[in-house]
């Protein structure tokens, strides 16, 4: 572990931890303004988290230790992912854990913990949410791995730092057909993984259409705060990863000339801008779209899978 890597990881965790609720707030604000409402302000998610954290902890009847530990596992996986993914720096603190498979599997571990927590409640809603979340997870996996496959072709490694670094040094790679196809595929995947419209509606109040919200229906107080915070962090990490895979400029390069003390703040500011832009675009898109029926979602994911497959084919035949 290099000092620069450790510093970068700490900066990333702080940035994602503190900034992700603001991102959610900004996205809600964009939606509110576009729908003609005043909105609650960018800092509202933080105020909600503070309120939830002050409430007493609840043990729902008949739930076991897994129900209690699931929000912790979810938040822990999101924090570790925030530390290893190249958000502000390409120098990974954990040598060799910034592998895209490892990060995907890490985020999946958090989802699985929450799904088990949902099943543990022994209610129909918990089981329903868990079942649907697992369907989305199972169908998203092939697309992610194939996109990684396509992107890793140009560097010969699945290490995220290496992929981002190569795009930094050879910008022409970013506008290649491989990159563009993989970007479309990954965009769908990010939307599905973070539970946004059209796959899932984070603002829904109708249990029967819920995916993520049905799973966490029984959580309250500090537990709910953790779940909400972790979801916001996952959204930030995935959007940030997407941004840096396809537009890496501004990130502190591990082999760069600038000392990390100067490069890191710049990188963090650029990253904030990139993620805010992506989040705003996502929120604006959601205003004009309705949620898909549950059984139409596989078709959307199959489409993204085909894109990823085309990207891999292109990476071989255009190389």
């Amino acid at each position, binding site marked *: 572990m290099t000092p620069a890597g450790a510093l970068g990881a700490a900066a990333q965790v702080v940035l994602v931890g503190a900034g992700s609720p603001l991102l959610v707030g900004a996205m809600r604000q964009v939606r509110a303004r576009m729908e003609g409402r005043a909105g609650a302000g960018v800092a509202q998610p933080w105020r909600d988290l503070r309120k939830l954290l002050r409430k*007493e*902890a*609840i*043990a*729902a*009847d*008949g739930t076991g230790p*897994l129900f*209690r530990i699931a*929000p*912790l596992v979810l938040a*822990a*996986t999101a*924090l*570790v992912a925030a530390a290893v993914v190249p958000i502000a720096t390409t120098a990974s603190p*954990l*040598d*060799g*854990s910034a*592998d895209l*498979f*490892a990060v995907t599997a*890490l985020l*999946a*571990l958090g989802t*699985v913990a929450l*799904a*088990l927590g949902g*099943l*543990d*409640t*022994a*209610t*129909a809603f*918990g*089981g329903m949410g*868990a*079942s649907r979340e*697992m*369907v989305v*997870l*199972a*169908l*998203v*996996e092939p697309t992610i*791995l*194939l996109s990684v*496959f396509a992107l*890793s*072709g140009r560097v*010969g490694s*699945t*290490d995220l730092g*290496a992929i981002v670094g190569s795009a930094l040094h050879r910008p022409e790679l970013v506008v290649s057909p491989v990159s563009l196809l993989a970007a479309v595929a990954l965009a769908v995947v990010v939307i599905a993984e973070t539970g946004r419209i059209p796959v899932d509606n984070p603002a829904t109040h109708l249990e029967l259409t819920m995916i993520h919200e049905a799973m966490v229906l*029984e959580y309250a107080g500090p537990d709910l705060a*953790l779940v909400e915070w972790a979801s916001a962090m996952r959204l930030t990490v995935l959007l940030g990863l997407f941004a840096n895979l396809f537009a890496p400029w501004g990130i502190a390069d591990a082999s760069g000339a600038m000392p990390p003390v100067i490069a890191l703040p710049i990188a963090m500011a650029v990253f904030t801008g990139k993620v805010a832009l992506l989040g705003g675009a996502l929120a604006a898109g959601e205003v004009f779209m309705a949620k898909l029926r549950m059984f139409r979602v596989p078709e959307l994911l199959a489409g993204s*899978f085909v894109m990823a497959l085309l990207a*891999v*084919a292109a990476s*071989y035949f255009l190389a």
Partner: protein
Amino acid sequence: MTAAAFAAALALGLLGALAGMAAPRRVRPFVAGSCTAASGGAGVVAGVAALTGHPWTAWLPHLLPLAGTRLAIDPLGGLFIAVTGAVGVCAGVYGIAYARPLGRAVQAVTPLFLAAMLLVPAAASVSTFLLAWELMAVASLLLVLAEHRHRASVREAGLWYAVMTQAGLVALLGGLVGFAAAAHGESFARLREAGHALSPGVRAAVFLAVFAGCASKAGIVPLHVWLPRAHPEAPAHVSALMSAAMVNLGVYGVVRVGFDLLGGGPVWWWLVVLAAGAASALYGILQAVVATGLKRLLAYSTCENMGLVLIGTGAAGLLAHAGAHTLAALALTAALLHVVNHAAFKTVLFLAAGSVVRAAGTGNLDALGGLRTRMPVTTVLFGVGALGASALPLGSGFVSEWLLLQGLIKAHGSGGTPMAVTMPLAVAVVALTAGLAVATFVKAFGVGFLARPRSDQAGSAAEVPDAMLLGGALAAACCVLLALVPAAVVPGVARAVRVLVPGPDAVTGAATLRLHGVASTLSPLWIAVALAVALAVLRLGVARRARRKARLWDCGMGPLSARMEYTATSFAEPLQRVFENVLAPETGVHVTPLAESSYLVERVTYRARVGDRIERRLYRPVIAAAARCGEGARRLANGSVHRYLGYGFCAFTGVLIVLAVTR
């Protein structure tokens, strides 16, 4: 060292068999189980000794008439012997308590079965190999049939298993005997020398026959039909031995003959292997995700994992043929490491499933639930196994699947268009399999062990005896070790790989795994440490507070009943719908109206079943045709003596005519 340990393993196996027959009833399970475990332990020692550079060969000319017995343990055989032995230790300890009510036959045959499995990778001539293979098949068949007096379904499962395993033996026998005849010698050393020089037609025939025989043992689609039948009916520790150790020997046969004895082959051989593996992985996990029986689910998961191993093997064969030996070694290391991981987690899962069936009286997930308070240790054990099987970080399967994906991705650029077309598809198959495996094991663990009991049987389950817990705990400890410190076994696997593909070790490193020639690294230990730190910080910061008990959200309707929970069937329904075209579920709704009016409904019955489509489409017609032939033959023999004399007369005349014409 190797020789002494291996001889001890075989002797202890035989001793266990004798004790299982003759020891007094009170101590019989203990003695037989201890002998099995000790035999497995000696097998581990022998295997590890062979892996660490003490190979061993022996020629016992008088043990068998005509051919004699030829044994040799090289690192490849050593790896499989060590894995089999380790599974044997866990199963033996578990059996001390589990096999008590099962009767003499199970206790006597289990150690014999283990000894036969230890013998297969040590065989160094065709006759010895086939003998050990058949001994293993017959012993396992006897064990599958153990409870035939209690359930009629055991007999049917036994029949399926007997037919499939014997058909596999016929294929293997044909292939290997043909090979020996063409090579003018039956020792493996002789076959190795002659393997290259045979004509391509003979080589292909040998490989395909051996592959078919081994695939039926490994449960590869479409030869998997015995697995989901035999496993639910066999005793749990026998299931563990079969599913974690015996199926591996199918893989052993393929790599031994394909890589070692035949010295590799053309592209299409390995494409066949790869395609069979991909079909098996996908079909196995799709069936597992909709299965409701716990042991049936695990059996299909075995199909899936053996499919993944064959994907790695096929990719390695393709790469070796293309001359990319480093990458071939990487793919093969991934495949063999997955064999080791699969053995570890499948042992835990089957032993825990056996405990559940013993304690709750049912393995039907739709009737289970709530076991976490009643059987806490078993729940933890199953959880460890499920984590390993679902290829998530902190689980053992994750490391080998990561290696497999690395191998497949890197293979893409080398080897021309066949690789460029097949590798992305293989990656997609592995990825979809990984995703569905997560769903499968969330279902198995979440529905089976968490929540509330869905039946009275599950509600009255109690924790099983200590020996059963200890057997599972040993395997779970192996799982944890493999997940966190894979470097503990990777050098051994690399040595086994070097027997097949020459070159440097593909995977090195201690806490962080580094790949030779590929710029990718993975450190499962550091991921675990980072997660633990994050968890500890969060726990200190947020969640340490006294909790108030509160009601669940019941929509204001009053307390929820266990009938309202999601079941395994309902959990898998969305996936069943997504993959409807592959699974072809049979559903039927039958509405019975009241007698007074057809508009008023008296009763609605709903029936849903997901059968094995391959069995229905491929095997049923063959069975029906065989049955028709049998019916036809019966009409020829109607009991009339005159008719039989007529048949004899006609046959005799026919023979005479043939002789007269041809001489």
